[in-house]
């Protein structure tokens, strides 16, 4: 009997502890994960579904007490037939294209040079990384000052180099130059980002591949095109993906540099959306536009990721 009691006394707590532990693992997983999910549901997913609902109504946020009626697909029809929106999409595409081309070219070149590991490369890399860590709005606002004809440093530098009169260098006021004023600032800010990812790509190429190419007497040019570029390509594509998504959403820098002007030459999608939503208070229509934008980004990103995975597997 004593032995049995002893065994029981020894066994029961162990078993109980085991059971509690087993139960508590599931419980802990649930308790640990749910707060983050609940927060995302409340502040990201719920608003998204609300926006979908609003996109089928004639609701106006500045008249919360008016009767809300369903308008079916009319908002979507209007969005897809709105020339201003197509114009904004075109402007956005133009920005995304040029910023990606410039940032990839300059960023990759810089990464390639830094990968030569000259003396002090770590220090200079850190210096180059600074712009991407700053606030696009705050820095963009200051760039407006740099662009100012007559007083701005940029106008002075350009007139010094080109011999033009500084008052002729209207980066923000000239309809054909204004988009470029934004592309320049965006490139200044985000080239380091592309550079950093490219650098990781270059560092991931094992030395022995180059050594083998060296033994085969492949010229440096050939090594560059047959080893360096293809092996760094997945990384370059990743950088392009992240920059593409970010620049599709571009808002802060444009707002502060040009506000969409002159005319509507720099009016990107986010700016049009903000005007419709917070200035015209066409909540239903702007929600439809927001959904169209989201579907476009999401769809393009998914197609792109498939292509990226193909390149990775090669």
């Amino acid at each position, binding site marked *: 009997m004593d032995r049995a009691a002893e065994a029981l006394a020894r066994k029961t707590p162990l078993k109980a502890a085991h059971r509690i532990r087993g139960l508590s693992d599931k419980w802990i997983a649930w308790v640990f994960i749910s707060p983050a999910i609940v927060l995302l549901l409340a*502040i990201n997913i719920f608003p998204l579904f609300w926006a979908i609902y609003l996109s089928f109504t004639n609701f106006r946020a500045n008249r919360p007490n008016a009767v809300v009626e369903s308008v079916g697909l009319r908002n979507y029809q209007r969005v897809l037939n709105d020339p201003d929106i197509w114009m904004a999409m075109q402007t956005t595409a133009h920005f995304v294209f040029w910023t990606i081309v410039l940032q990839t070219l300059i960023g990759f070149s810089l990464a390639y040079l830094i990968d030569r590991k000259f003396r002090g490369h770590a220090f*200079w890399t850190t210096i180059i990384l600074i712009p991407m860590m700053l606030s696009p*709005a705050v820095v963009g606002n*200051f760039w407006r000052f740099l662009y100012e004809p007559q007083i701005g440093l940029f106008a002075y530098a350009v007139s010094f180099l080109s011999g033009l009169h500084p008052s002729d260098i209207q980066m923000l006021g000239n309809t054909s130059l204004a988009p470029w004023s934004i592309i320049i600032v965006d490139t200044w800010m985000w080239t380091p980002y592309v550079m950093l990812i490219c650098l990781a790509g270059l*560092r991931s190429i094992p030395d022995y591949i180059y050594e083998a190419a060296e033994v085969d007497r492949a010229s440096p040019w050939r090594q560059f095109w047959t080893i360096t570029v293809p092996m760094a390509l997945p990384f370059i594509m990743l950088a392009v993906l992240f920059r593409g998504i970010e620049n599709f959403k571009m808002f802060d820098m444009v707002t502060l540099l040009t506000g969409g002007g002159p005319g509507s030459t720099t009016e990107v999608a986010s700016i049009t959306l903000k005007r419709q939503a917070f200035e015209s208070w066409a909540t239903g229509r702007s*929600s439809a536009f927001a959904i169209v934008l989201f579907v476009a*980004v999401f769809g393009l990103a998914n197609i792109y990721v498939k292509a990226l995975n193909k390149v990775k597997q090669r």
Partner: protein
Amino acid sequence: MSSGNTAHSVVEPSQTTKYVAGTIVIIYALITMVPLAWIFLTSIKSPPDSIAYPPRILFTPTLEGYCNLFTTRTRQTPDYIAALGAPQGTCDTVTRKRNMVIAGPSNFLPRFVNSLVIAFGSTFLAVFLGTLAAYGFSRFKVPLADDLLFFILSTRMMPPVAVAIPIYLMYRELGLSDTALGMILLYTAVNVSLAVWLLKGFIDEIPREYEEAAMIDGYTRLQAFRKVVLPQATTGIAATAIFCLIFAWNEYAFAALLTSGTAQTAPPFIPTIIGEGGQDWPAVASGTTIFLIPILLFTILLRKQLLRGITFGAVRK
């Protein structure tokens, strides 16, 4: 970093290559720093010096910009200043030296404090919730874990302006419009996706055996998490915190659309600093400088973890 070049490697770049590469990179770095240097120089210029043409590199530095930025005084004319009697404090002296006008009370300090409260508050929450969720995803079999993780990431693809409309309506209903709490919750939600992805990567790298050993020694799961996993994950948690902080510190779109006064942060405020004749550029530059300093320090601290943070951990270094 993969196997670095060794001294005897055949692919070690030649001395000339290194020299040329170094020169080009240094020139690029210097050009890239010009706008930042100009922000600092403008912040210590007087308003006339700041808009002089050609742009002045040599000038007498003054704290006028900083004084205008922080002043809580009402607008002052030179006559009024003269009538005040003996100068009190640095700003008074600076003002009198040039017999100038203070533009009027500035809201910079409360806006800067808002930035601090909202950025640190949301960072703390995001890292706290992110650490728990990341541990959950890393150590337990969660049903549909991959789908949940992708869902968490996809919340970042929405343009802020697009979700701002329903959030605006929701906040109006809940009384969270233009409150620090509302902004903290919003930024926490945006940051938590990054935090979960980053921290899951860091926690995945801590061997499970450590916890198992601790649990055999009689620790419960929670004790093992607190006393074994958390200390090991400190570096990762710190790096994640800094990324969340940088986002919340720099964010503009939500802040501009959802706050109008009491909860406004510095990014939408700084561009609105207006002086006597339009934008008071030295004051704007002073505000910008003060606002950028913490981030400059973080960049230097963070340079090694930078890559993981900006790629959601998709690239390991």
